[in-house]
């Protein structure tokens, strides 16, 4: 098992290098540069000032020198400086990271819970009204655009009923103790987590249902039934565990994208996450921030992969044997 972990982690270095080179080239290929955007925004029209900025941003050097310099500084765990935010990239990312991780982990949690539960119900009551209901809801939440769902939930729960706040992560202009603050964050988290969670839940429900139905047909389930086990026991300890593997794969894929955040949900609920930061950075060609987020993401993907592998072993010992 240690060998597997070691092998996975050894893949990180080339992965990160690839991420840097590929994305740096992509940003260089995109028309318009960071200097264009910054000087336009600052309405800088003085040629001398433009030259000065070009030197400040390090854009007076050829692209390959910029790339090598960037790789060298990443090797020293320095992600560079973002002149747009006037702060170091690490600082900028850390300012948005907790919000994103909180939102994504919560919504994936919501999705996993609702999706798996709905999938079990649909599989157990296959071809009944329950199964159809789950399918209808799954299709609906999967197909409904998240921004529309988000706005509808806001109008219902925030504007009409006044239960939840309209966006943000904390009540503004209020100082509160840690417990009240945690409660406050939960209140703000509810709608965005549900919006995003329902979208993911739809996928989980469909996968879970299909996987459960497949396992139901296997011989060992028939054996379990034949020896007189209670239906609940069969579903929970025999079928569920074996049906979870595809869901684990999905979960692993999704946990890998945690750092990407969700631009749309963040925009609708003005959630202070990394998605909007990425969008702004790509639009302004601010490559240190884009690369910083992507490098961190690739690290997360590598780590999650290791964890998912370990979970496979736990769920299905046959994998380890191979």
């Amino acid at each position: 098992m240690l060998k597997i972990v070691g092998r996975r982690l050894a893949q990180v270095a080339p992965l990160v290098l690839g991420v840097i080179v590929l994305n740096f080239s992509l940003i260089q290929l995109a028309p318009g540069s960071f200097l264009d955007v910054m000087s336009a925004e600052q309405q800088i029209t003085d040629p001398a000032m433009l030259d000065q900025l070009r030197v400040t941003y390090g854009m007076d050097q050829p692209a390959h020198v910029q790339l090598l310099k960037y790789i060298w500084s990443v090797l020293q765990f320095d992600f560079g400086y973002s002149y747009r935010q006037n702060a170091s990239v690490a600082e900028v990312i850390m300012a948005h990271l907790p919000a994103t991780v909180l939102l994504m982990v919560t919504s994936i949690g919501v999705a996993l819970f609702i999706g798996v539960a709905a999938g079990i119900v649909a599989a157990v009551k296959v071809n009944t009204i329950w199964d159809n209901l789950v399918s209808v809801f799954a299709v609906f939440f999967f197909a409904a655009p998240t921004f529309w769902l988000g706005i509808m939930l806001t109008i219902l729960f925030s504007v009409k009923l006044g239960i939840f706040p309209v966006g943000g992560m904390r009540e503004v202009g209020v100082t509160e103790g840690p417990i009240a603050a945690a409660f406050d964050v939960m209140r703000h988290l509810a709608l965005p987590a549900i919006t995003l969670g329902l979208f993911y839940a739809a996928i989980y429900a469909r996968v879970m249902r299909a996987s459960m139905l497949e396992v139901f047909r296997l011989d060992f389930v028939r054996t379990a039934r034949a020896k007189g086990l209670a239906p609940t026991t069969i579903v929970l300890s025999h079928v569920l565990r074996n049906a979870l593997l595809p869901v684990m794969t999905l979960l692993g894929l999704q946990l890998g994208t945690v750092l990407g955040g969700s631009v749309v949900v963040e925009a609708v609920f003005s959630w202070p996450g990394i998605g909007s930061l990425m969008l702004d950075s790509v639009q302004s060609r601010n490559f240190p921030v884009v690369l910083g987020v992507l490098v961190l993401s690739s690290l997360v993907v590598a780590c999650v992969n290791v964890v998912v592998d370990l979970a496979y072993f736990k769920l299905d010992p046959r994998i380890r044997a191979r």
Partner: protein
Amino acid sequence: MKMSRRELLASTLAAGTLASAGFGEAQAQATPKKGGTLVATWGGFEPQALFVPAGGGSSPYFTSTKVLERLLKLDNKLVFQPVLALEVTPAADFRSYTIKLRPDVKWHDGRDFTADDVVFNALEYWKPISSGGALAGLTSAEAVDKLTVKFSFKDPTPEFFLKSVLAGKAGLVIPKHVYEGSNIITNPANNALVGTGPYKVKQWVRGSHVELARNEAYWAPGLPYLDQLVIRWWRDPASRSAALEAGQLDIGVFNPIPAPDLKRLEATKRFAVTTDGYLSSAWISTIEFNSRRPVVSRPEVRQALLHAIDRDFIADTIFFGRAKPSIGFIPASNPLFSNPKAPQYPFDPKKAGKLLDAAGFPVKGGSRFKVNLVAAGWFEENVKLGQYVKQALEDVDVTVDLAIPDRATSLKRIYSDYEYDIAISNNSGAIELIPGWTNFVTTSGIVKGAAFRNANGYSNPTLDGIVSNLTTEVDEKKRAGLAHEFVRIAATDLPITGLVDIQSVTIARSDVRNHSNLADYLGESWSDVWLDR
């Protein structure tokens, strides 16, 4: 106006009032209440930094101006009012100005605001960094005493022009003791501002909001009325509407919510919508013809193509009535310098066709000629505008190749590579034409790679001469005459002109009082706004 601007300024000083014009006046009649938290937003995103010394667009301008102040401000009647300066007086030859500063003003860190600060700002910040060349003629700035500064200029300098710079986007006063000896553009203080303004930065929660707390030591007694001003950002206009309705947002400036929502919310009587407060920050949608391209370099072709475009349709349909057809390159709302008598090109596709025939471009094989149309994709309206102009030109048998690139690409195509025949872009600017508006058409305005300047390559010595006179003419009447001539020439040769003047709106809860009372309200300090709760 019978009174000169100086007399007007003096008389308002003598009265010593905070009274403001128009909309504000009616609101100000009730006795202001102290206290409360005002939550404000604007129709855009979070700024990249709270203060961007070289400008940085509307978002940092919105946040920084609550903390940093200027020497003067411009009210809705286009009269300059004192802020950190009490008087700005020209010498008889208009080659020097004496500025008397307000006494007993303290920076947020407790230091005194003095003439040295203003000298530092003029020479180290405004002239080289923020004014975009407007103060190129400033030869010296010296402190006469602790509260008096003297500016000297190479040439006679018009009073309205200088005061516009001091009251404008470029004129924020930053503390010398914080910025001296550092690179102003990258100074960490730009995100932890020290100013003289009515609010101090308490906390910036990135991605969400900035909390500004009342400056207890503010120089104006009793001000500001608010205990706290919170500027919050929503990326989605529909969410801003929801926040207004749910009572979590009090005021939104610069088109915060979708146009159809404005009518609905105004009808509830819980909200007030106003177009005041944008006199000196008018936005227009522009159409620009590249003089480097043979077909569209000819004025008669440009005139004909303008006849093919229905500006009323653009204003009513694309902007939901929140825009007016332009009467030229300078917005009609500019009472001093716009010129309603300049040539107009009303919608008349038949005439457009005839003019194009006469210009030597008859329809051959279904098309007269082909143009590249670039619509700068930074506003949603520009996308529709690009599509509409394509259709309108195709209706007069011009083949159009339309591109609507994203912001960075648009900037590059229009202002760096000049890679277009016709471009749709935007400009916003103050009442004063120099240098913001004139840079779009003067020869000196051609700077490759510098955005929002002359990208069309137009160069006309007559017009350059008028602009140069406009820079040094000190008689206000003669200046207005020169400006009208400037507008007339631009409207005849048409290197660039306005399609529609965008009407910016503010929406606020009815209990927010005394707002929108200055000519560029988004960028004012908001010291006198109060909550009637």
